[in-house]
């Protein structure tokens, strides 16, 4: 490296290193930074639980109907896009889990017959199926029970299995965040490879022990060894590695989204090669398909389609019909991706017909995340201000006086409807360009011709156009009325 390049690298390194930023830097270095963020979300979760169980049954009038489904989902995707995996960082479900680890000191390993992401994938599909069948968004009471189930699952699983089994193998929200964080502009990474090369204790993965041999700081419980960690997958931004490193060689750094994530053939610490991980491949397919299906469930044509399906299959159970739609939709996407992969394999003369699929299926992730972002931002931008009258009403009910003023129920949208539509289309388009660029860059890296990448570009374009059509459909809200 020339002196000029080295200087430029140091300058960029200093600016992009978030631990060097005023206020934010010292806070990130503070050992209880995560706990403080978790405490804030825990208090919000308790408020949501309280209102979900004891508040009005109408979702629009209840914190459990508004905060999780309008604000939290919108802020999660915004945070992933603009900052990083902030929700996993501030996840309140992990506070009782930490208690369980102290109480039970689990030593059992996660079962080998349930590896990787398979369980999380099943839970994801089941959750979104249940979301539609039971109209979870319309029931504060059911929403509260979902949150209770989350707290209980984190407590039980991590009280039973060592490490971060819940985050790595079970949590559907975590998997969503991992894939979304591919597009994030920040990453937990090391500063200097030379420091890691000379390190003998490997505290970032083993944890930091004091002179008496007592563990005083956990290392990465998801098995990500910092010197070989690639990108954001499986990283909860817990900062354990940052605090464990005795050389302060681990930090949070700004980066160009996607760029370090493109190659599924690279060996990622704690994950391996993505091209050898069918569970990750199906997770990408599943989350991409669910992104479109979840939005499809909110527009008028879905009811025509359900009716047609019901008459064709002679099935009247909504649950069964929705299961057909979910499995059929994801299956259709899987077949389309396998066909694209097959064409790529044939055109490149690859040794295996799966070669193209295994490498390019991950390029769907930005488009899938773009659809989720468009959907969740739609609800957030059209309903963010509803938190104002809701809080006013909550205070009035709890204290018996309008301490924050009379509820201003007319408040709802952050932006005019036309602008919201433009924003969501832009988000979907950004996802499409991310996917297309991923496929093109990977094709270039693998020295493939344009024709070999073309099937994937066609698939991206077809999904993008379907998304544009979806977002242009009239919304239709049907669901459990009056709780």
């Amino acid at each position, binding site marked *: 490296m020339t002196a000029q390049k080295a200087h430029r690298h140091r300058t960029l390194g200093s600016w992009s290193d978030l631990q060097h930023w005023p206020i934010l830097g010292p806070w990130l270095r503070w050992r*209880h930074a995560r*706990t403080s963020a978790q*405490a804030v979300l*825990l*208090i919000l979760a*308790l*408020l949501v639980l*309280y209102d979900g169980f*004891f*508040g*009005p049954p*109408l*979702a*629009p*009038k*209840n914190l459990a*109907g*508004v905060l999780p*489904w*309008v604000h939290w989902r919108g802020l999660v995707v915004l945070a992933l896009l603009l900052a990083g995996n902030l929700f996993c960082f501030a996840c309140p479900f992990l*506070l009782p889990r930490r*208690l369980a680890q102290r109480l039970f000191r689990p030593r059992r390993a996660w079962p080998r017959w349930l590896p990787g992401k398979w369980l999380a994938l099943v839970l994801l599909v089941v959750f979104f199926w249940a979301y539609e*069948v039971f109209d979870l*968004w*319309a029931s504060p009471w059911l929403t509260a029970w979902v949150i209770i189930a989350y707290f209980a699952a984190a407590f039980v699983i991590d009280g039973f299995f060592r490490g971060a089994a819940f985050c790595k193998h079970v949590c559907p929200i975590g998997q969503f965040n991992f894939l979304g964080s591919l597009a994030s502009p920040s990453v937990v990474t090391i500063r200097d490879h030379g420091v890691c090369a000379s390190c003998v204790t490997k505290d970032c993965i083993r944890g930091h022990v004091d002179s008496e041999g007592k563990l005083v700081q956990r290392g990465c419980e998801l098995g990500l060894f910092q010197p070989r960690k690639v990108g954001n997958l499986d990283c909860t931004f817990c900062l354990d590695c940052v605090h464990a490193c005795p050389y302060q060689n681990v930090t949070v750094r700004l980066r160009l989204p996607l760029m370090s994530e493109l190659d599924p053939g690279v060996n990622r610490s704690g994950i391996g090669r993505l091209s050898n991980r069918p569970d990750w491949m199906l997770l990408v397919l599943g989350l991409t398909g669910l992104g479109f299906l979840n939005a499809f469930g*909110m527009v*008028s044509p879905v*009811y*025509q389609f*359900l*009716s047609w399906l*019901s008459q064709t299959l002679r*099935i*009247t*159970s*909504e*649950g069964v019909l929705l299961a057909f739609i979910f499995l059929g939709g994801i299956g259709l996407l899987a077949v389309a991706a396998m066909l694209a992969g097959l064409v790529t394999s044939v055109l490149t003369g690859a040794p295996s017909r799966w070669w193209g699929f295994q490498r390019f299926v991950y390029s769907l992730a930005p488009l899938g995340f773009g659809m989720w972002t468009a959907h969740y931002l739609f*609800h957030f931008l*059209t*309903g*963010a201000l*509803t938190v104002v009258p809701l809080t006013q*009403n*909550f205070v009035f*009910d*709890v*204290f018996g006086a309008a301490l924050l003023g009379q509820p201003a*129920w*007319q*408040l*709802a949208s952050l932006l005019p409807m036309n602008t919201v539509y433009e924003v969501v289309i832009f988000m979907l388009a950004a996802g499409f360009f991310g996917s297309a660029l991923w496929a093109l860059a990977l094709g270039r890296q693998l020295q493939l011709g344009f024709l070999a990448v073309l099937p994937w570009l066609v698939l991206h374009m077809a999904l993008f156009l379907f998304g544009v059509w979806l977002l242009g459909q*009239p*919304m*239709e*809200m*049907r*669901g*459990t*009325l*009056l709780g």
Partner: protein
Amino acid sequence: MSVIRLLISVLLLVVLASSLAVCQRGQRSSEVMVDIVSVEPSPPQVGPAELRMRLRDERGQTLAGLGSVEVEGTMSHAGMKPVIVQAREEGDGVYRTENFEFTMAGDWIIIVRGTRNGQAFEARTTISGVRSSRQLPTTPGHDHSPKVTPTP
């Protein structure tokens, strides 16, 4: 460890305090019931609409003489701007909305608020299956044929 203990204590206090503050918030005892008499256009669809509602007391007697009441139309999904208008009495406990509009297709919740004998009341009912401009068939599992559901 002390931080965690402190945190747990604070959280337990928050839970206890909120539980003591009120048992079931927002559940105003309402002795007023509302029935939808008519919706124009029928079947209801997205766009301007006129609702006629009859208010009744706990004995089923019509509630006349209230002058006007506030009508809020909202949806089962949170985050939508509710439609809030006034409804004026046209006689015999029947109240007619002014400038009401269904802004979206789907299931609507109608909340009527007013004052009776100096006491605020709130009554709710539903209008299911408001249609978009196109005619939609019945959906299995979701009974959305246009109907009104009186709710006590």
